[in-house]
């Protein structure tokens, strides 16, 4: 049956059979049953419920082999249910001394599985000690599996397990130096390489080692490993020892060891990249790349440059390329780029695109002089024209345009390249462009008369595709314009071409031909008196000016941008010259704006972040200047309060009331009733709004603090339920009295706060649990009305509680197979809503992805073919709706980061709407700057702004 399954057929007819075999009394039958079950079923399968009892009986039973089988099953496919019912038994087995190692090692990994399913099964405090005990184990099998468990635990929370650290070091010492290992666990003379690797991996999860003794021992061991490993004949032994060695290297890097040790590592790596064994060479290169990040060693790595360059010839050149890319700087850029160019000739086809992109970036970043850069790029285009993306040549054009000194040189070069017999189409594009613009600068040189230039370009015309022809036409027009006095023969030639293309089927070409023809005729007529014509070049250059203005520091920025994207062909290529009608010289509009788009964008980004920052500062200081009386409330109501003139409390309250009444869904204050704040003279510490927003993202932290009291919060969320604990801490040496806490829950939340004591003793902390049940999706926020009396001060504060929509989300990554059917099945409002959001706080795509992620919305990369779009999904839990899958798609515009289009779909219309508004709020406002400083008319009653289903949207729906 397994065989059938493996061949790719569904065998659900046999599932029942397999599960019932588990409860068979005989070993072979049971064995088969277990194995088949664990291979065929997954953790959510219904049949597993049937088996859960048998499995449990086996685990607590006496028969060791049965125990093993059951543990293996659970370890492989155990789900949450298993975790809850079996965890204690498994723990007992793991720790009991009466069990044989055979059972215990399985128990360790079984527990690991259960821990992954439900982290609560391992109690942090108690386990650290038990783990240390476990690590004293002599049996290597148990040790290996315990180490895996430890790695998982430590990666989750390294602080709790620091006691295990010395143990790990000891194990490592025992294995590596003393070779104190039973015969059967040595592998080609190496004491269990896997355990060594695992141990070192575990050590990498601890940030640093404080204890100097442990540290020294560890370094001694590492030193021993580094020195003691040598290349040997036997492949297996060689591999195993190098496995250990590489892990040791990683550990050394992690520990940030002394310089001496580092350079020793680099020397070792240098040796590796020279060996013949491809695996070791590959890893050597990879580790060297990693090492670059650690810094300090660049100089020593550079010594190996020659060797790395030879490795480029490897079949697996990726690593070498990455490394070269990383180590390149101003001193060696010229050599490296030239090597890359040379290599480009022989490189594998799949590699060429990446190779040329990297070469282009490096050339741009570290160009010692611009003519060299132009050379490099032109060579690049010549050698790998098919593989480079358009933005590379856009960049050259941009550079040339902006550097007057460069223009003659570039034009000469372009001519040179174009004269060659077989020229790539991209090359034709660049050269035609440059020649069209600047060939007049060469006019005095021999062989560069407009006529000759024209004939050079024109030679290429028959061989190019329709996208290039417009460029050529423009070049002709320009040459013609620059030829003064006009050359009749040339003019006629060019006119013939224009007339020929006037009837071209391609709209773009046709348009241009007609326009140029008309223009140049007109030009010829008026050129003698020099009246109208100069406009043409004028306008041209004004466009260029714009481009210049827009790119302040382009080299750096675009390199960064390219680097960030790594994928060359998105941002810039999107806009492919649209047929522009109307504009007389439509030629370069399309292109230049394409070129400059990202730069504009970048500068704008910079500008606006600065702007936002300054705003933020302004806001903060403003808050501080507020009269104390209005403070807590002002923070709650954000923009309203800031506007409120000092002292005019009553008026302000009135306005607040009226505004509250006018819109039931006002900013955040739906549940706030204006209160008497006159007696309140306590100044909070820190910005309440900031704290609230921080708590929206994490589950514990400080909600409020003033000189007398600190309110902390700790929350746990599970599906639609939540449990918050409020920590009320008295910071003073005298008690706080008349403490009152009242929860004002919005309609969609059911909240129960346990009793809050009337008095908080001096320097004491009181915990008040608060149960939350989410009934329906809504963005409203619960408010805690808290008051206390200190001395004669009566303090009353209203705090928003971070029980917000995103807490009831559970990230859910989906695959394309799951996503698309659902996306299609939810069509149109109200289940699926779409909105164009403007005024978005500009952020890069990864940043936005992070933001969504922090709101527990999982991004599914790669689902959307357009890299500027994000597709994400999550599950929402509430009592009414149970679990609902929500799908999100955000389309961004790389040219304008302040707007995006958002589409949301879920099975529940309210949820769709609420979630859309929620995400929008997060995207539009930066949390600390509560909307704009001027109070906008508080959110008009929420009317779903569903744009009419335009065809584009319909198309987009189909992705």
């Amino acid at each position, binding site marked *: 049956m397994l065989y059938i399954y493996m*061949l790719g057929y569904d065998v659900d007819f046999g599932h029942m059979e397999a599960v019932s075999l588990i409860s068979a009394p*005989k070993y072979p039958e049971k064995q088969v049953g277990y194995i088949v079950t664990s291979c065929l079923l997954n953790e959510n399968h219904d049949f597993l419920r049937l088996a859960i009892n048998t499995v449990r009986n086996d685990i607590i039973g006496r028969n060791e082999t049965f125990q093993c089988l059951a543990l*293996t099953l659970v370890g492989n496919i155990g789900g949450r249910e298993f975790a809850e019912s079996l965890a204690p038994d498994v723990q007992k087995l793991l720790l009991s001394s009466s069990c044989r190692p055979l059972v215990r090692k399985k128990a360790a990994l079984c527990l690991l599985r259960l821990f992954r399913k439900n982290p609560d099964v391992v109690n942090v405090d108690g386990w650290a000690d038990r783990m240390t005990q476990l690590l004293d184990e002599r049996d*290597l099998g148990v040790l290996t599996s315990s180490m895996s468990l430890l790695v998982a635990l430590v990666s989750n929370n390294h602080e709790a397990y620091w006691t295990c650290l010395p143990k790990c070091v000891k194990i490592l010492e025992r294995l590596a130096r003393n070779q104190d290992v039973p015969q*059967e666990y040595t592998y080609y003379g190496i004491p269990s390489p896997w355990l060594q690797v695992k141990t070192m991996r575990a050590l990498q999860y601890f940030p640093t080692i404080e204890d100097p003794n442990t540290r020294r021992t560890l370094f001694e061991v590492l030193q021993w490993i580094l020195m003691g490993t040598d290349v040997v004949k036997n492949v297996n032994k060689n591999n195993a020892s190098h496995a250990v060695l590489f892990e040791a290297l990683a550990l050394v890097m992690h520990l940030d060891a002394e310089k001496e040790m580092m350079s020793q590592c680099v020397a070792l790596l240098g040796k590796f990249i020279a060996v013949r064994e491809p695996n070791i060479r*590959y890893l050597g290169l990879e580790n060297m790349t990693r090492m670059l990040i650690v810094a300090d060693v660049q100089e020593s790595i550079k010594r190996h440059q020659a060797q790395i360059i030879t490795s480029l010839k490897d*079949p697996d050149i990726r690593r070498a390329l990455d490394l070269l890319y990383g180590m390149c700087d101003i001193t060696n850029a010229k050599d490296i780029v030239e090597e890359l160019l040379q290599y480009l000739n022989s490189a594998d086809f799949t590699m060429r695109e990446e190779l040329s992109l990297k070469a282009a970036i490096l050339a741009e970043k570290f160009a010692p002089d611009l003519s060299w850069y132009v050379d490099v790029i032109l060579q690049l285009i010549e050698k790998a024209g098919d593989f480079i993306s358009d933005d590379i040549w856009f960049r050259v054009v941009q550079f040339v345009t902006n550097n007057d000194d460069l223009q003659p040189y570039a034009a000469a070069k372009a001519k040179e390249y174009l004269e060659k017999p077989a020229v790539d189409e991209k090359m034709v594009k660049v050269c035609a462009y440059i020649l069209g613009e600047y060939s007049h600068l060469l006019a005095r040189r021999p062989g560069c008369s407009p006529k000759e230039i024209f004939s050079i370009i024109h030679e290429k015309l028959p061989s190019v595709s329709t996208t290039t022809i417009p460029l050529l036409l423009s070049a002709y027009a320009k040459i013609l314009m620059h030829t003064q006095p006009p050359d009749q023969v040339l003019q006629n030639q060019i006119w013939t071409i224009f007339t020929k293309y006037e009837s071209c089927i391609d709209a773009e070409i046709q348009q241009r031909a007609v326009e140029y023809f008309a223009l140049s005729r007109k030009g010829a007529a008026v050129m003698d008196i020099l009246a109208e014509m100069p406009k043409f070049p004028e306008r041209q250059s004004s466009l260029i000016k714009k481009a210049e203005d827009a790119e302040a520091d382009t080299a750096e920025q675009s390199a960064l941008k390219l680097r960030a994207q790594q994928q060359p062909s998105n941002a810039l290529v999107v806009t492919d010259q649209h047929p522009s009608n109307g504009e007389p010289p439509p030629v370069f509009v399309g292109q230049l704006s394409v070129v400059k788009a990202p730069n504009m964008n970048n500068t704008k980004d910079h500008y606006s972040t600065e702007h936002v920052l300054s705003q933020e500062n302004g806001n903060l200081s403003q808050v501080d200047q507020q009269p104390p009386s209005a403070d807590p409330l002002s923070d709650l109501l954000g923009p309203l309060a800031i506007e409120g003139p000092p002292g005019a409390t009553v008026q302000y309250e009135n306005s607040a009331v009226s505004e509250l009444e006018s819109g039931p869904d006002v900013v955040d204050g739906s549940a706030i009733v204006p209160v008497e704040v006159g007696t309140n003279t306590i100044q909070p510490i820190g910005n309440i709004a900031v704290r609230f927003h921080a708590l929206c993202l994490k589950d514990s932290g400080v909600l409020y603090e003033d000189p007398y009291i600190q309110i902390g919060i700790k929350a746990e969320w599970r599906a639609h339920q939540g449990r918050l604990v409020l920590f009320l801490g008295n910071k003073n040496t005298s008690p706080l009295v008349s403490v009152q806490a009242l929860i004002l829950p919005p309609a969609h939340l059911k909240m129960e706060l346990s009793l809050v004591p009337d008095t908080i003793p001096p320097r004491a902390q009181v915990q008040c649990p608060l149960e939350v049940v989410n009934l329906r999706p809504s963005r409203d926020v619960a408010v805690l009305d808290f008051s206390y009396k200190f001395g004669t001060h009566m303090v009353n504060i209203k705090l928003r509680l971070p029980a917000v929509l995103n807490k009831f989300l559970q990230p859910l990554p989906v695959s394309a*197979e799951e996503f698309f059917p659902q996306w299609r099945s939810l069509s149109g409002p109200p289940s699926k809503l779409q909105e164009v959001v403007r005024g978005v706080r500009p952020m890069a795509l990864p940043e936005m992805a992070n933001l969504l992620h922090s709101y527990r919305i999982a991004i599914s990369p790669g689902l959307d073919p357009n890299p500027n779009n994000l597709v994400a999904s999550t599950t929402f839990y509430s009592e009414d709706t149970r679990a609902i899958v929500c799908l999100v798609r955000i389309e961004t515009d790389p040219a304008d980061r302040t707007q995006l289009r958002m589409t949301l779909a879920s099975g529940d219309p309210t949820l769709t709407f609420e979630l859309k508004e929620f995400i929008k709020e997060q995207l539009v406002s930066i949390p600390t700057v509560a909307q704009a400083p001027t109070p906008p008319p508080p959110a008009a009653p929420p009317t779903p702004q569903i744009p009419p289903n335009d065809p584009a949207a319909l198309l987009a729906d189909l992705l």
Partner: protein
Amino acid sequence: MGIRFILMVNKQGQTRLAQYFEWLTLEERRALEGEIVRKCLARNEQQCSFVEHRNYKIVYRRYASLFFLVGVDNDENELAILEFIHLLVETMDRHFGNVCELDIMFHLEKAHFMLEEMVMNGCIVETSKANILTPVQLLEKT
């Protein structure tokens, strides 16, 4: 989680043994196997035994006509996995005596038992050959 799957594939690209430590549907498995096998079988001797595929790495090793492919997380130690494959082969060798493709085909369940003993939930449990083989021998006795 370490190891994600272990595949044994012959030279013709037919899967001989497959063990997954993460749940994939049948279609996903088929697609994945197809992609990987095409990728790995096309490589030659001079290339290294590690291939990056999607978001994880594949470590492979060839024994006569049989390819052993192991999918691992990106941060896993490649050489250690490479040697783990060899250990697996040695273990099978010890049990079957000069193991070949047919042994695995006809004693699929035993191969699974061994694997089960060595890897659990994507982590290596046992590396001592004797310990791995005890349960399998026990099975034969009864």
